[in-house]
Structure formats: structure tokens, C-alpha cells
């Protein structure tokens, strides 16, 4: 009798113990982070394709390809925006083409000439590889839906453009304007269309709507006295240029000199 009683007491204790343990171990306790492994998995041709995904993409791709793979011109060398400190072949080309093609619209509508063009280095989204140039190339370089605008700026703002370029330290696409970066990191000998900058004159500056609205901190465009929307997408400017020429020639002339 005594023996049984003692045994029962032990059993009770055991059950309480078990309950306590299971509560503390399995309910409220959070997980502890013990190990982290990080790596990068490259996606290459060694990875097989997923048929279901491939079949899903195909009709979309076929439709676009039919449209894009028309050969428009030939490019004798790869043009890359990362190969230049203050100017690049592809940047100069784009800015020049914007002045040329933009003038067709601007002359006809406003009977005025574009003096210069400033675009942004970041807006060139791809290289132009050596070989056939297609509509696709234009889409890759200029995937954005930005259009060309002309801003009327005073000479004062033109000097702000030079200061901006120096401050940003990037080869911003520039056409119609040249200057020298002096030893004190200030712009000098600013020339527009081959003539010294006149601070009181109004200049017509071509750019895209993104930059005209202050994009990339191009605040000088906010001081414009007049804005002309050319309703001409930059990508279409490029496509029209490619259609016009047989061979793409990137300008090599120096627009910004460092002293």
C-alpha cells in the first residue's frame, strides 16, 4: 500500500516534468539562426531550358522579332558608352543625330535652329555592337519612351551645363558645344556652334523630356524661358538615322578638353 502510493507520486512528478519540458521546448521558443551560406548561381547556356516557359514566350517573341530584325545599317566597330572620360563615340553620335533630326521638325515648326544638344550618359542603355544594325539595336540603346524637347536657355544656363558636366564627371552626350576644363576644375573657352558663349543670348538646347523636367538633377532646364515639345521619340530619332545611312560613323572629335 505504501509502496503503491510512493510510485504514484513519482508518476505524477514525471507527467508534470514532461509537460513542462514540452511546453518550454516546442511552443513559444523561436528558432535560432545558426548558419548562413551565400552564393551566386550563374545563368548560362549550360542550364537547360524549361519547355513550358519556352512555349509560353514563343508567340510573344515571334511577333516582336518579325518587327525588329530588319537590317537598317552597318556598324563597323562596337560603340560602348564606357570607353571615354569626357566623351564617347556613341554619346557624341546620339547628340549629333538629335540636333540633325530635331532640326527637321524645329526648323519647319518654329523657323529656328537648335544650337546644342545635351543628353545623359545614363540614358544610353546598351552598346551598339559591330555588325548589322537593326530596329532592335535602337530599342536596346534607347528603350525608354522619352521624346525630344527643345528648351530656350540663356547663356548663363549654358555655363551651368558645363559646370554640371564637370561636377558629374561623366561623358554626357553633347553636341554643338565645346569647352575646356581648366586646372581649377572650372569651365573655360565655352563655345557654342563655334562661337564664344554670349551670356545674354538665348540658345535653343535639345534634350529629352526626362532631363527637361529636372531628371538627373539637371536643374538649369527649370530656368528655360520657352519649351518646345517636338513629339519625336529619341528611339525613333535613332531608327530614322539608321535608315538614312548605310554605315554608322561615330564622331571622334573632342568636345570637352581637360587642361
Amino acid at each position: 500500500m505504501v509502496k503503491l502510493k510512493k510510485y504514484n507520486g513519482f508518476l505524477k512528478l514525471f507527467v508534470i516534468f514532461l509537460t513542462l519540458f514540452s511546453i518550454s521546448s516546442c511552443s513559444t521558443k523561436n528558432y535560432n539562426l545558426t548558419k548562413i551560406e551565400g552564393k551566386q548561381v550563374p545563368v548560362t547556356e549550360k542550364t537547360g531550358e524549361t519547355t513550358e516557359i519556352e512555349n509560353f514566350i514563343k508567340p510573344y517573341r515571334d511577333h516582336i522579332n518579325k518587327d525588329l530584325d530588319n537590317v537598317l545599317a552597318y556598324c563597323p566597330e562596337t560603340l560602348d558608352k564606357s570607353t571615354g572620360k569626357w566623351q564617347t563615340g556613341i554619346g557624341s553620335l546620339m547628340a549629333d543625330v538629335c540636333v540633325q533630326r530635331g532640326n527637321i521638325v524645329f526648323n519647319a515648326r518654329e523657323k529656328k535652329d537648335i544650337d546644342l544638344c545635351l543628353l545623359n550618359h545614363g540614358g544610353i542603355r546598351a552598346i551598339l555592337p559591330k555588325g548589322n544594325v537593326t530596329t532592335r539595336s535602337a530599342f536596346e540603346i534607347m528603350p525608354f519612351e522619352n521624346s525630344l524637347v527643345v528648351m530656350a536657355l540663356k547663356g548663363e544656363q549654358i555655363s551651368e551645363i558645363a559646370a554640371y558636366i564637370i561636377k558629374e564627371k561623366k561623358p554626357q552626350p553633347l553636341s554643338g558645344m565645346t569647352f575646356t576644363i581648366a586646372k581649377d576644375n572650372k569651365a573655360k573657352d565655352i563655345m557654342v556652334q563655334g562661337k564664344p558663349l554670349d551670356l545674354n543670348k538665348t540658345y535653343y538646347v535639345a534634350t529629352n523630356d526626362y532631363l527637361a523636367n529636372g531628371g538627373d538633377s539637371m536643374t538649369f532646364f527649370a530656368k528655360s524661358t520657352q519649351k518646345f515639345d517636338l513629339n519625336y521619340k529619341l528611339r525613333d530619332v535613332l531608327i530614322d538615322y539608321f535608315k538614312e545611312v548605310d554605315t554608322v560613323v561615330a564622331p571622334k572629335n573632342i568636345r570637352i578638353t581637360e587642361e
Partner: protein
Amino acid sequence: MKRREFIEKTAASTALLSLGLSLSSFESNDIKHLTILHTNDVHSHIDPFPADDPRNPNKGGVSRRATLIEAIRKENPNVLLLDAGDIFQGTPYFNYYGGELEFKLMSMMKYDASTIGNHDFDNGLDGLYAQLPHATFDFINSNYDFKNTVMDGHIKPYKIFNKNGIKVGVFGVGIELQGLVDKKLYLETVYNNPVEVAQDMTKLLKQEQKCDLVICLSHLGYKYKDEPTKISDLTFAAQTQDIDLIIGGHTHTFLDKPTVVKNKAGKDVLVNQVGCYGINLGRIDFYFDKDKAHTNQSATIVV
């Protein structure tokens, strides 16, 4: 009498010993393995780069990425698949279809969530809104206030995922839109300070919701060497706490391995980014256990 006492004591200690053993073995077997897979700045790169591309020949491609993801899911079904924004813009797929195909393919690959990059505004708020029905995953951003826009209620400030018992809190931070995105595209979207927003988010996710893991999807950019004061993933990581992993984007930064940064509380945060265009898939494996001995230990980071 002495013998009985001995037997009782032995029985008790055996019971306790076996109890202890079974508990400790239960704990050590209860290791949870969570795999985070991530992409950023895919920019509509659905097809691989062609073999003659001078910079990225034969790299990338959604169909191949899907194969990799599927293989990893077979190895460990406990996967969270995330994107850090700029899904849109970069190939004609976007210009022709406005992001429809990007969202549909990400849904087929079973993405769990994405944050919003500056280029996801490229067709305006209406353009993004129009494509939302094609995404079965959630969009997470905590520092853009869309209250006075068409996007109101369609972007989650955070989401808690329960992955096989592991509670994962995910929130998102986006870059300052003014000066980067045309105002007519983002309209009345308000940008709030990411560090301040992260304080509220981590308090909620780590302290109140007791998440085992807190992940921040960021489109702030990895680092700005010419503008050290500008908020970036590295400065953000150092100014916040209770974040375990920051999955970044925007700067198209290719990292050999995730960067380990000390946060405000002196603890390690992982910052990762996998370049752009779907050339790489990021993979971070987290291992958890319930061993009490590990409670106050920091995790071993193998990168």
C-alpha cells in the same frame, strides 16, 4: 529500505536521463533550412543574350532561370523567391507588351514577392496598375505612400511568410523618385525616409511579430562612392537594426559574394545584389535550430 530508495532514485534518474536525451535529440534533429533565391534589375531580359553579344554572350534567360529554380526547389522545397525591382524596361518585350509577359513569367516561376524599382514607373502609375492582374505574387514597399494614387492598397508595406515553421518578415524600400523619375509618371507618390520607415518595420516584424528572419528588399542602390552621404544599401544597413538580409538592386552591382555589414546594434547584416538582366540568380541558405545553446550566438556566415 535502502535498496528501495536506491531503486527509486535509479528509476527517477533513468527516466530523467532518457527524457533529456529524447528532448535533446528532438532538438538537434529539428534543423530548418530556408533557401532565399533572388534577382534584381532584370529589365525585361526574357531571352538570353545572343552568343555574339560582346559583353554578356549566352548569359541569362528566363527559361533557364526557371530550370535552375526548379532544381533548387527539388533539393529544398523550402524556398522564398524574391525580386528587388526594375522588372520593367530594357528590351522590346516591355515596349510591346508593357510588362505583361514579365509578370506572367515571374508568376509561372512562383515568385513570392517583389519590390518596386524606379523603372517600374516607366509607363506611369496607370501602366503599372494595368499589369498587376498578371502577377500572382505580392509587391512590397514600405516607404512609398501611394495613398493619393491609383496604386493605393495594391502595394503591401510588408508581408510575413511562414516557411515550414520559419517566420520570415519581408519589407521593402525604394529610391528617392524626385529627380530620377519624371513627376508625371509617379504623380502623388510620396517618398518617405527609408531609415525611419525601417525602424517601424523592424520593430513590428522582429520585436512584435517575432519573425525568425527579417529581409529587406531594397532598390536604394549598393553604394555611391561619389556621394557617400546618399542613402545606399551599405549606409542603410549600418543605420538600422534587426534586419538579417538586404536584397538590393538599382546600381547593377555584381558582387562576388554577399557583403557583411555591422548594423546599428553591432550585429552582422548580409547585403547582396546579383548584377542585372537575369545573368545571375542569388542564393542564400539559412539554417535554424532550437538548440538553447545557440540562442545568443551569432550565426556562422559562409560566403
